[in-house]
């Protein structure tokens, strides 16, 4: 049996992390809201099957960057994005890209759980239906069940699939939204403070879910909770005043960050 020393295992894991291919590449990404520039030439790559946490004080551009990854900024008037973002090889800002299809590939979960005013079943079936991913009832049943299972919600709701999604608790609603995002088999899931409206137990369940989802999806999460970033992510990117200050392995980021601004922010000190 080949027993590696602890240091060798660490090194192998580091190397493994360094060889994880990039799922999305952001190059010189800048965002303007009218005259105001919100992001300054951000170069940040998102690794496949990795949870990447975006942290930084309010207004630092982390949510803005997250939204560029599935062109959510398109819905904001006056918003202009420059630079280049690719998903695998595809330039997602290419005029020929179908934005609806892009958002199926790069799904999103928001801060406040926002289930549709429909049944639990229809909330999950909605995406596959509009994207034509299933035709027969049996197909839909299967997608709904596996999606709810992946979101760790199936056992809690299996007897009331046709009751309204809005009748669930906050934490369950958020997991329903994750099930909804998962139902269209996205490649990347963006999460914008998915736990900020949840209590600690619901938060723990969502965090556990994020941890499990990582095997099948690439996840980018914006969070105000330092501890959450430390708990769920493998890579952490720190934003400050529209700039990417530092991107590093999460372990390094929370024990010995390279940048003074990261240091001050995560330790809760005056910058």
């Amino acid at each position, binding site marked *: 049996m080949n027993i590696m020393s602890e240091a060798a295992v660490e090194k192998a894991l580091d190397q493994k992390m360094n060889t994880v291919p990039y799922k999305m590449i952001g190059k010189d990404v800048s965002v303007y809201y009218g005259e105001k520039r919100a992001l300054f030439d951000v170069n940040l790559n998102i690794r496949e099957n990795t949870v990447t946490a975006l942290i930084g004080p309010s207004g630092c551009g982390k949510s803005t960057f997250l939204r560029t990854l599935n062109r959510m900024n398109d819905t904001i008037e006056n918003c202009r994005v420059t630079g280049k973002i690719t998903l695998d090889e595809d330039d997602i800002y290419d005029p020929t890209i179908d934005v609806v299809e892009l958002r199926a590939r790069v799904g999103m979960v928001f801060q406040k759980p926002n289930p549709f005013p429909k049944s639990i079943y229809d909330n999950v079936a909605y995406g596959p239906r509009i994207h034509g991913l299933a035709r027969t009832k049996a197909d839909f049943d299967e997608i709904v069940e596996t999606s709810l299972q992946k979101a760790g919600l199936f056992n809690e709701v299996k007897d009331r699939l046709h009751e309204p999604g809005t009748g669930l608790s906050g934490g369950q609603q958020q997991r329903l939204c994750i099930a909804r995002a998962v139902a269209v088999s996205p490649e990347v899931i963006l999460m914008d403070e998915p736990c900020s409206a949840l209590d600690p137990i619901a938060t723990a369940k969502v965090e556990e879910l994020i941890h499990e989802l990582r095997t099948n999806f690439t996840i980018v999460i914006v969070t105000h909770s*330092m*501890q959450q970033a*430390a708990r769920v992510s493998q890579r952490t990117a720190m934003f400050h005043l529209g700039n990417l200050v530092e991107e590093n392995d999460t372990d390094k980021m*929370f*024990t*010995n*960050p390279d940048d003074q601004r990261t*240091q*001050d922010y*995560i*330790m*809760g*000190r*005056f*910058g």
Partner: protein
Amino acid sequence: MSMHIMSAYDEELKYLTRRISEMGGLAEQMVAESVRALVNSDLALAQKVISDDTILDDAERQIGEKAIVTIAKRQPVAADLREIMGSIRIAADLERVGDLGKNTAKRVIAVAGSGIPRKLARGLEHLAELALVQLKEVLDVYASRSPEKANSIRERDEEIDAIYTSLFRELLTYMMEDPRNITPCTHLLFCAKNIERIGDHATNIAETIYYMATGAQPEGERPKDDNTSTLGSVND
């Protein structure tokens, strides 16, 4: 370093720093007094060192408790986390230094009356001076958090090891000269070993400070010049 947004957090960290400094001062004093008690056969002073040890033990416990509470409440990260973990380690090292001083003090009773040869006493005093200088400097480095100075202390442990080795040889010689010397010399050997260990603890503390300041372990092997583990054959 800049202040925390929550000032109570700064107060908790300051408490740890202050208590560590106090422990350092007391540990230093105990070591100095234990050697003085030994050389002068001063039983009263030895007794004082023995009773002072409980103060050091209490301080270590209090620092540990404060550190645990701070970790639980503040979830410290990065330099703050290293600071708190470092405090726990340094407190443990200083507590051990106190124990070694106490152990030396306990041996005063056994050695008193047998008359320590002047030359040996000088050797022990010299060893203790070096260990104390190292302890004092490492406590100064703790206050300044200079990684460079922490590293230079680490490199100086060699000197103490070398003197300890020569004392070891000397004690063996005395024992071989006259079997009646064996009892006091064995005690003195332990005393010398105690003092030499204090140098090691000072080195540990220097390494901890280096880690607290930089987040990295000091590079390279710790310099060693304590050869006594291979000494001992009559022909050596």
